[in-house]
Each structure stands twice: as structure tokens, then as C-alpha cells.
């Protein structure tokens, strides 16, 4: 079903999306979207697919629990805020604070992302949220990360530009960040270790990157041929000693 979102207020639009889904519609195409917030907020149902044409507003897919949303343009701030399950594919770039507190599901962004992406992501048992970024990222990528996977590809990185911003993984105490190429260790949080991924981790990487390449029609072999580095938390309690001097600094 197609819905014309031209100059429709976000609450009207989201009510309409909910209404047609309750009536049993599984595939919705939104045309002329421009700035409407909260598209797909809290939606459930892994068989639901929403195609977005135009620029969706902030907090797209907030608390989403199952559906897939594909954006054929750029997305704004807060994509996938605290989402629990489902898939997000953004063909352009995405703004700041995407994947904040993400608990599960998958987010692929073809272009760059802004600041504070994937902060405080978490994982539990089979719930492993995954973000793959085709371009570069701003400061604070994966800050306070507690679980999940972030893969940063830097495909069209311009000379002289960093693939990731400052404070990469600061406060990280779980999860993994994979970066294609090198990272400037001065820009990485002091709670973070840098290593080469092992074979098992390369399997995860290959699986996600090949899926990413398929979605956006990219050359998988070319992308994976550049070596990756792995960023991991040195400890699960980076700030324990700050609050209680009896706790010792534990290293894994």
C-alpha cells in the first residue's frame, strides 16, 4: 500500500501506518516523506516492511520490534533509538545518535553517520544488535558500549579525513567495534584495546559485510580485502575503582 506523506503531520502519518497494519497490510510505501518523526515507532511484526522515499524525521524506528524499514534517501538523527528487533537499511547518510541503546536488530547505513552513533548498545543471549556503516563516523562512536557489534567501513573516506571521530569507544565495557583500515590510537578511549580480529570474528565480519554488500549492490571482495582492526573493552568495569577503592582493576 502507498501512502502520500506530503506535508502530513507526523502524528497523523504514524496513526495511519498503525491503522493499516492493524488491518493486515504487510508492505507500506511512504512517498514524499520530509521530516516526519517517529516513523515505525514501537511497531511489531517481523513480516512488516516499510519503504521510505524522502527524508524521515528524527527517531525513526524508535523502540521498533521486528519490522524492516528501508530508506531510499538520507535519514536524520536518532535512527533505531532503543530498537529491539528488525532491520533498518538507509541508502544515504544518517545523523547523530543513531542506534542509541540499541538492544537487538540490524542497522545498515550506506553513507556516513554523525556523532554518538551506537552509544550504550547492549546485548543479551541471542540478542546482538549490529550496526554497519559504509562511510565514516563522527565523535563518540560506540561510547559506553555494553554489547553488540559495530562495523565501520569508511568506503569513500577522503584523504586527510579520519574514518572515525574522537573518543572512539570511550567507556566501552562490552561488545566489539570493527574498523576497516587503521585507527588513530590517540582518538580511541583509554578503556579500549586494539587488536587484529581472530578467525571466528572474521566469520562474523564476513557474514555482515557480505549482507551489507548485497543490500547496497557493492563489491564484497573488494571491501573485505582491506584488513580490519578490532576494538574491544579491556575490562567490564572500567569505572569500578572510581566509586569504590576496594574494587581492583580487573583485566581479562
Amino acid at each position: 500500500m502507498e501512502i502520500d506523506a506530503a506535508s502530513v503531520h507526523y502524528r497523523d502519518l504514524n496513526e495511519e501506518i498503525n491503522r493499516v497494519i492493524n488491518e493486515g497490510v504487510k508492505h507500506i510505501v511512504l512517498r514524499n516523506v520530509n521530516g516526519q518523526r517517529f516513523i515505525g515507532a514501537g511497531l511489531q511484526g517481523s513480516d512488516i516492511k516499510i519503504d521510505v522515499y524522502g527524508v524521515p524525521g528524527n527517531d525513526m524506528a524508535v523502540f521498533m520490534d521486528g519490522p524492516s524499514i528501508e530508506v531510499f534517501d538520507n535519514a536524520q538523527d536518532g535512527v533505531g533509538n532503543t530498537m529491539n528487533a528488525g532491520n533498518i537499511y538507509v541508502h544515504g547518510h544518517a545523523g547523530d545518535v543513531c542506534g542509541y541503546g540499541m538492544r537487538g536488530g540490524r542497522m545498515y547505513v550506506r553513507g556516513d553517520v554523525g556523532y554518538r552513533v551506537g552509544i550504550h548498545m547492549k546485548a543479551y543471549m541471542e540478542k546482538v544488535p549490529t550496526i554497519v556503516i559504509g562511510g565514516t563516523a563522527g565523535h563518540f562512536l560506540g561510547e559506553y558500549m555494553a554489547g553488540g557489534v559495530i562495523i565501520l567501513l569508511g568506503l569513500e573516506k577522503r584523504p586527510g579525513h579520519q574514518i572515525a571521530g574522537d573518543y572512539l569507544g570511550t567507556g566501552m565495557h562490552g561488545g566489539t567495534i570493527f574498523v576497516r583500515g587503521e585507527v588513530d590510537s590517540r582518538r580511541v578511549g583509554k578503556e579500549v584495546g586494539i587488536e587484529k580480529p581472530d578467525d571466528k570474528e572474521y566469520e562474523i565480519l564476513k557474514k555482515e559485510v557480505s549482507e551489507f554488500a548485497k543490500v547496497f549492490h557493492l563489491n564484497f571482495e573488494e571491501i573485505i580485502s582491506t584488513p580490519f582492526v578490532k576494538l574491544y573493552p579491556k575490562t567490564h568495569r572500567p569505572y569500578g575503582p572510581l566509586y569504590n577503592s576496594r574494587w581492583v582493576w580487573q583485566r581479562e
Partner: protein
Amino acid sequence: MMNINRKYSDPRDTSGCGLVGFINRDGQCVDGSYIKKSLCLMKDRGNGLGAGFAAYGIYPDLADYYAIHIMMDDADVKSKVEKVLSEFFLVHREEEIPTRANPFIKDPPIFWRYFVKPKKEVMLTFEGDDDLVVRAVMSMNNNVSGAYVISSGKNMGAFKGVGEPGDIADFFMIEDYRAYIWMGHTRFPTNTPGWWGGAHPFTILDWSIVHNGEITSYGTNRAFLEMFGYKCTLLTDTEVVAYALDFLIRQHKMPLRAAFYVLASPFWKDIDIEGIENKDFAEALKAMRIQYAPLLLNGPFAILFGWKSGLVGFNDRIKLRPLFAGEKDETLYMASEEATIREICEKPDRLWMPRAGEPVIGMVKEGV
């Protein structure tokens, strides 16, 4: 495609301020319908407690005169205002700023504009025209209770008040003005009052500022600027930014980019990293950080800064407020959200997310 019911015409859930501005580098003017349309898209970022516009190029026939926009609580104040004005200026023309009644704008103050030239005989030693205007504005804001200078530049003006962006635009008949730089703001007041004088933009001479965020260093900045005769009277943190830029760029003749390195100075650790490759630049950054330490702006902010020849957008050093930029032909756009730019600019040539602490600068071409 199906059309859907529209039920929510006046929602009040909120997030933060919204700002938008654009400049045509060829000096081509457009009417106010564009800024209104783009700002209205961000209506939900504000909460109806303040909206405003700044426009450059709106008084081409009176471009040699300072256009003093004054907000007055009631008509009784007017004689006091005119007494102060006549002390400093020769008034060439005066008129009420045209407004249109709007059902959502309750009890507006009255707005008057005066086109003036400074009186040479009242200038102090070493005082130029601009200095006299600043002194007059400070005197008016400080000494005439119930009167506030909203803008005081040449060939430009600010229009602002308490209301939703669309209503404030209608109230001031913004569509009737034509400008080559437009700035707009919708407000969600956090820790200062939502009153008419507190709406953005804030201006002095032809510098104007719209701002999303909080200047937590307001007290320090204000104390420093007061030593140089700037008096903050509008009860809002943003005011200091306008005065700080006037101080740095006009009084201390600082290059534009340098002024922003004072306000959003790089962190010490970044200056050290910079110093490895570019020692002279790092030394300059250090010197500015020390010399102008009281003007460092702390807290989260995205700010647009306009004057007769340019428009600058800049962020705090870790980008705690959104800012987005776009470009099409000779027009540079900046806004809190990408959709705001796309609303008035189909198929932009370039769209990007500016980096924290790095100003985006659009200048009118030389000779235009």
C-alpha cells in the same frame, strides 16, 4: 495513493529549539515565504514560546541609515524612547513596523522602526558611528524601562515574538520582505523566560544570532563583556554571543575564523595533537585560548551568526546540538534538520553534516 485524515493541528510535545538560515552569495533576494515554510516544518521543535527572523537587504532605499527596530511595552514609552534617540541620532524617518492581527498572538507589544544617522557632535573621542550606535542601544535597553532595541543594523532587521513560527511570520508579514540572508528560529525555552524580548534572533549593529542550546558560561562571558561596556538586558544566554562576536570581530579586528576558535576553542589535547604537524597554528590557538579565556562558550550549542556580508554556522566542540548544511548553486543553507533544507531546496548540489567546532562560512561575493 490514499490521502489520510489530519487530526493534529496544534500538538505541543517538544524537543528543542530549531534554527534555519540561508545566504545567497550573489546577493539575490527572495521573499520571506521560504524561511517561513522551512521554519514551520520544525514547529514541533519549539513550543510556541518564541519565534523570530532576521533578514538582510530589506531596506535597500534606506541602506545608508541605521534601522533601529524597537519593541515597546505600550505607547507611553514612545516619548521616552524618542528622547533617547534624539540625543544620539538624527531621525530621518520613523514608522510603526507593519503587523497583522493574528488570533494566536495575544497582547503583543508595539513595534516601531527608526531610520537614523549618528550625531557627530555627541561622539566621544575615538568613537565611530558603530560605537555610538552600540552605546545608544545599551543606553536604551538599560535606561528606558519597557523599551528594547530588537535590531540596530543597516539594511537589515529582526522580527521576533512569542508564538509559533507561522503565526509570528504572519504577525510581522514576513512574506512582504525580500532579503539575501534569512535566518529563522523557533524556541523551546529551557531555563530563561519565554517572553517577547527573549525570542531569537539577538542582534547588535548588523550582527545577529540564533541559537539552539545553552550557554552555561553565560555568567563568565557576561562579566567579561560588561568590562567593555556591553550590558546584557534580555534575560537570555544567547545575548552574550552577539556581543562577544561584535567585540572580537569589530573591536579587536579579529579574522572571522579566529573569532570562532575563541568561542569554541579546541581542547588542550587537540591543540597538542595539532602542534605535532603545525606548530605555529597550535601556538596561535594556545595564545587565543589564554588571552580570551573568559569568552570561551561552554555548554551545548548550535548557532547561526549573520551579518551584512555572510552567514556562519557553528557548533560546540563535541556537537551536542544538531546542525546540517546544504548547498545549491550560490545559496548556502544551514538548519537543525536536513528536512528543513529539503523543504525549500529541491535537489541540492551538496548536503553535509558539519563537524564539531568547525564553522561553516558563507560569504557574499566581493563587489555584490
